């Protein structure tokens, strides 16, 4: 067998293959990833615009408050619908079939179709910015989104509709792939934790996204067909939108962060050379979060809800901290006493842990009703969800990028640049968003361009570090491009990892595996002689036993 693999030259797909329709999950994964990252840059540029406007307490960059409204509306929409959610589809697409030893996703054509819905949706949404832009925020509450907005809002709803359809189709594909296409030796309890996370995420997406689709359908009818589902003056119900929207969008928060939690379990275990602490509980806690996530939506409506419903939602919201806490302690237990290799992937994973725990704690604070009413609609809330979505999701996305880049391209990323990138991102992020807690508690409202001059110093501090954070993105862009062409050859298994995606060439051949791969009995069983023998066998099969780039063969 060894000779057959050595004779194989590892061919990377031509760059033009990424611009065409392709049903190969590895191509589609990269298409998702590159497209999502481009939208990250677009949304990031909008964030820079927001921070530039907030440099002074008066209007300067923006012509009017409305222009500012549409700017942060687009920022939120692009980052959530066009960046984070598709970005997880990127890693899910590339990695999950490989981890399952499958040759492709269950429905390759559907997979490609789901991706190709994204460019038209993005065009529709972004075009809206140039007509009469949507300015009701990414949550688009009526009556702002019905009576007080123009055609851009209609285009926004159409684009979001398309993205929802794409997300549902992609998720059906993941569920079927994960449940039906594992190798016979891999029961669900020996499945890699990323697959558990993607499974939980996809179940949420299939069950929650249709709520968004339904709400958007009614919103579009209100906007174009003269109905009054959300208009109280026409017998409609304004709160109906908030209820349906958050019944989707709160579970969607977990769509955005659960895959990142799966990435954390992979990266921490592999780069600390230790089994995952409490594997079963981590897998089950993903399901727990998915389930409890459906019972907490109205905590977004504490100030608009019937008062008697507030306490029940306060309780369920606090309960969801339990499965999340299980994960946090599992990660701590995993790195405890581990043989840590401070790779860029591990640094970002540790960054995730430190930032997400802050976001989680402020989440419990916001769940407490009296506190929530005090900081409602202030920068405290902005800070909280950026700690969860940037400190959480984006840090995990970077960890996943540094971790799987060698598998995708066959080249290692530059670790020195990776560390520089980490330092800029970590401190840029921390000093941008942590002070927002303070200005929020001092009473600075969100979603305004003109603020009390007393907050000027804080805002200039925040804006400065936001620009540092914005700059850090260019480091990773340079690193990716440079490493794609000049990075050292990675070999099949540079991290000496046990999951199946590393038991094939980098990048994998079109059919992923030449033979049906046999998974190691425990996907995280590091530190045993059996696992060392398995890893040596993988190395021997794919790189003639060549040492890994960091020369570290020992386990």
């Amino acid at each position, binding site marked *: *067998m060894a000779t057959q693999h050595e004779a194989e030259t590892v061919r990377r797909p031509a760059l033009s293959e990424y611009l065409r329709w392709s049903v190969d999950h590895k191509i589609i994964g990269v298409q998702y990833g590159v497209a999502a990252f481009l939208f990250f840059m677009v949304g990031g540029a909008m964030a820079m615009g927001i921070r530039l406007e907030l440099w002074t307490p008066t209007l300067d960059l923006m012509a009017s408050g409305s222009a500012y409204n549409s700017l942060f509306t687009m920022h939120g929409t692009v980052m959530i619908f066009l960046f984070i959610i598709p970005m997880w589809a990127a890693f899910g697409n590339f990695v999950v079939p490989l981890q399952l030893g499958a040759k492709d996703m269950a429905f390759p054509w559907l997979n490609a179709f789901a991706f190709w819905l994204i460019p038209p949706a993005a065009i529709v949404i972004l075009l809206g910015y140039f007509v009469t832009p949507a300015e009701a925020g990414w949550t688009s509450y009526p009556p702002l989104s019905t009576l007080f907005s123009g055609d851009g809002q209609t285009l926004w709803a159409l684009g979001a509709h398309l993205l929802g359809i794409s997300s549902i189709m992609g998720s059906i594909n993941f569920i079927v792939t994960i449940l039906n296409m594992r190798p*016979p030796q891999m029961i669900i309890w020996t499945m890699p934790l990323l697959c558990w996370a993607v499974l939980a995420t996809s179940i949420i997406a299939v069950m929650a996204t249709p709520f968004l689709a339904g709400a958007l359908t009614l919103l579009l009818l209100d906007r174009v067909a003269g109905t009054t589902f959300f208009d109280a003056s026409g*017998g409609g119900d304004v709160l109906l939108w908030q209820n349906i929207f958050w019944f989707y969008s709160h579970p969607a928060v977990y769509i955005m962060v659960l895959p990142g939690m799966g990435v954390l379990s992979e990266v921490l275990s592999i780069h600390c050379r230790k089994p995952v602490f409490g594997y079963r509980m981590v897998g089950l806690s993903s399901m727990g979060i998915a389930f409890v996530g459906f019972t907490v939506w109205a905590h977004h409506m504490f100030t608009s809800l019937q008062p008697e419903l507030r306490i029940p939602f306060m309780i369920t919201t606090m309960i969801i901290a339990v499965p999340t806490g299980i994960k946090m302690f599992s990660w701590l237990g995993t790195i405890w006493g581990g043989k840590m290799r401070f790779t860029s992937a591990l640094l970002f994973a540790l960054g995730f842990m430190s930032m997400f725990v802050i976001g989680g704690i402020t989440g419990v604070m916001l769940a407490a009703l009296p506190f929530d009413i005090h900081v409602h609609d202030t920068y405290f809330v902005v800070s909280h969800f950026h700690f969860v979505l940037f400190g959480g999701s984006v840090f995990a996305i970077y960890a996943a990028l540094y971790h799987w880049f060698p598998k995708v391209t066959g080249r290692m990323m530059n670790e020195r640049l990776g560390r520089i990138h980490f330092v800029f991102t970590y401190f840029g992020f921390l000093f941008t968003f942590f002070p927002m807690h303070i200005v929020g508690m001092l009473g600075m409202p969100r979603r305004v361009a003109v603020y009390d001059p007393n907050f000027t110093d804080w805002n200039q501090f925040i804006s400065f570090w936001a620009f540092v954070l914005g700059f850090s993105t260019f480091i990773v862009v340079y690193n990716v491009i440079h490493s794609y062409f000049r990075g050292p050859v990675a070999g099949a298994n540079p991290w000496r990892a046990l999951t199946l995606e590393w038991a094939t060439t980098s990048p994998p051949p079109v059919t992923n595996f030449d033979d049906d791969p046999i998974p190691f009995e425990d996907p995280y069983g590091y530190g045993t002689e059996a696992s060392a023998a398995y890893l040596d066998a993988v190395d021997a099969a794919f790189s003639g036993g060549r040492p890994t780039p960091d020369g570290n063969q020992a386990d």
Partner: protein
Amino acid sequence: MAELTADSLHAVATHDDHGHISEDEHNSNMKLGLWLYLASEIVIFSIMIVGYIIFRINEEDIVAQAHDELGVALVTANTFVLLASSFFMVMGLRAMQQGNRSGMLRWIGLTALGGIVFLGGQYIEYSELAHLGIVLGFDDASAWSTFGMRFYAPTFFHGAHVFVGVLWALEVMRRGAKGRYDNNPIGIEMFGLYWHFVDVVWIMLFTLIYLV
């Protein structure tokens, strides 16, 4: 190396279009995928159905008046046509499973016809209602001001599903005529699951809007 070669685990020889997986696996993937899709459809319908229920509880007068105007005879006949088409659908699948291709084409053709008749009935009903002044948009001047949207949104959304189902039935006939399902009728079964789903949703809407 024995760990990696896996001689004992050859993939099943039959391949589907993508050359990846066995027929059994393909069939079970398709069915699970369709069930998940139908689960997401249930959510969308349930939003409109719950919206109607809330409206019905709050606005009993308008609903009572609407019941007087809505002709139950036409829509009952329509419901039976749709139910019958589900039966034709089952017969079509059975015919294909017995290897009777032309029988399958006849039964699925009848299924599509049932769908078309249903849509025609719905068109007639909509025309009559429009004549009475029940329209989709909100109209302050009309006594029906808020009934129209609650009525048209779920029934039209359902009608759109029947329309898609008719197109799907025609596609099943086209493929079936080429012998696509001679060995593996999964494609017909998939269409059947969808068609039964559309039928079940209609029974709920019919009960809720016309009977209760």
